[in-house]
């Protein structure tokens, strides 16, 4: 059974503006899928539909066999099992780092304060930020905040992870510390759907690459095929532009 299926999904922000056009794809368990495409093509919207942060008008999305497009009451439970990392980190600025990591564990998973804290410290160690547990997000660099954000998702023991341009708000010298954590996750077999323009990352760990343009999935190919000989002109054009940088 695939981890994520997206089937004939269409979404409109208003009747005149269709942001997703009949999108279909599948993410198998343990697979790393990179989503790329020009800005405004609907990548963020697509990835947010997977845990129903954005509702869709047509089509079906399932996660771990559960239909999230019709789900209502069980949505929070499902979302807690799908890790999400945002472009702008979105740590809770009024909570300390360790509290950021405990909030979901205690409230959603019902873990005890102690168990949550232990888990939080373990994850902070993993992303190399134990020393910052008692600080507030505002006191950390962008790269550190994004690593905390990844840890915040991991403490929930997610069955898959969604990343929405996790490095594009970072200063160049901080990009790698975040990518390193993600590469390690991928190597451990985490199912990941990653919106990114870091083609180095895609080449290193992705299984498949999806190319979106104007709300459509234009290309959905094995990594070797995508980088070897993309079929569409639009993907070729996009690749040449982005690899030139």
């Amino acid at each position, binding site marked *: 059974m695939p981890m994520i299926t997206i089937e004939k999904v269409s979404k409109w922000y208003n009747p005149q503006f269709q942001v997703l056009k009949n999108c279909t794809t599948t993410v198998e368990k343990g697979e790393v899928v990179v989503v790329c495409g020009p800005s405004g093509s609907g990548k963020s919207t697509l990835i947010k539909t997977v845990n129903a942060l954005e509702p869709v008008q047509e089509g079906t999305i399932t996660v771990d066999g559960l239909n999230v497009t019709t789900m209502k009451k069980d949505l929070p439970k499902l*979302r807690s099992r799908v890790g999400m990392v945002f472009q702008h980190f979105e740590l*809770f600025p009024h909570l300390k780092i360790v509290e950021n990591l405990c909030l979901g564990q205690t409230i959603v998973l019902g873990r005890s304060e102690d168990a949550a804290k232990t888990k939080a410290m373990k994850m902070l160690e993993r992303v190399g930020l134990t020393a910052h547990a008692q600080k507030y997000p505002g006191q950390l660099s962008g790269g550190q905040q994004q690593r905390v954000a990844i840890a915040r998702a991991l403490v929930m023991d997610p069955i898959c992870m969604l990343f929405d341009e996790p490095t594009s708000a970072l200063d160049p010298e901080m990009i790698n510390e975040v990518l390193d954590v993600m590469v390690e996750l991928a190597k451990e077999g985490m199912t990941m759907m990653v919106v990114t323009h870091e083609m180095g990352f895609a080449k290193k760990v992705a299984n498949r690459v999806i190319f979106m343009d104007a709300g459509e999935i234009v290309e959905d190919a094995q990594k070797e095929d995508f980088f070897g000989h993309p079929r569409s002109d639009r993907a070729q054009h996009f690749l040449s532009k982005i690899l030139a940088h």
Partner: protein
Amino acid sequence: MFSNFDYDVIWRSLPYLFQQGMVFTLTLTAIATVFGLILGTLIAMMRLSSSAVLSGFAVSYVNLMRSLPLVLVIFLFYFLMPYVGQWIIRSDQPVQVGAYASTIVTFTLFEAAYFSEIMRAGIQSVPRGQVMAGYAIGLNYREVMRRVVLPQAFRNMLPVIFTQTIVLFQDTSLVYVLSITDFLGAASKVAQRDGRLTEMYLFAALVYFLICFTASFFVKRLQKRISIIR
């Protein structure tokens, strides 16, 4: 004018002015702030909800309260509350509501309208991504509000909330229309009794000024500190 100024009348009435008058003024300010803020927050959430009924109710409530002079509301509620109470508990007589209890309820309901506008701005000042992040870890609407949005909204609005409280502190003097012994009421009663209007009203003015000026000073400092943290 000050040659026959009687300082002693102030000195003599200090215990009465503060232990009775100021205590009530501060109690009324504190209760109306706390409960007005809680109620105002609920109204703000109704206002921002997707339900047309809830947001319609919230808009009407806020507009109604903001379109009536506070003095009038104090009066009106004092006369109406016994009948509202009668209707609520279905008794066959109007319920006795004293002037003190009545003003406390009135100020709470009145201030709720103003605090709701402040909290609405506060809630809207929290970026959408924060709400998304809350939902993404599995929180539901109530938890997102309580754990993520409201603490930030409250913190962002703290200086405005305090400023509103200072205004409220001054407005409590309007309870004189019900002959209540708040600070100004107490000063006024002494003034009338001893025929010392100038002394008592000047002293009352000085006390209000000092309290509000000092409070405003601290609010400004708080505002600076918050803008640094963010």
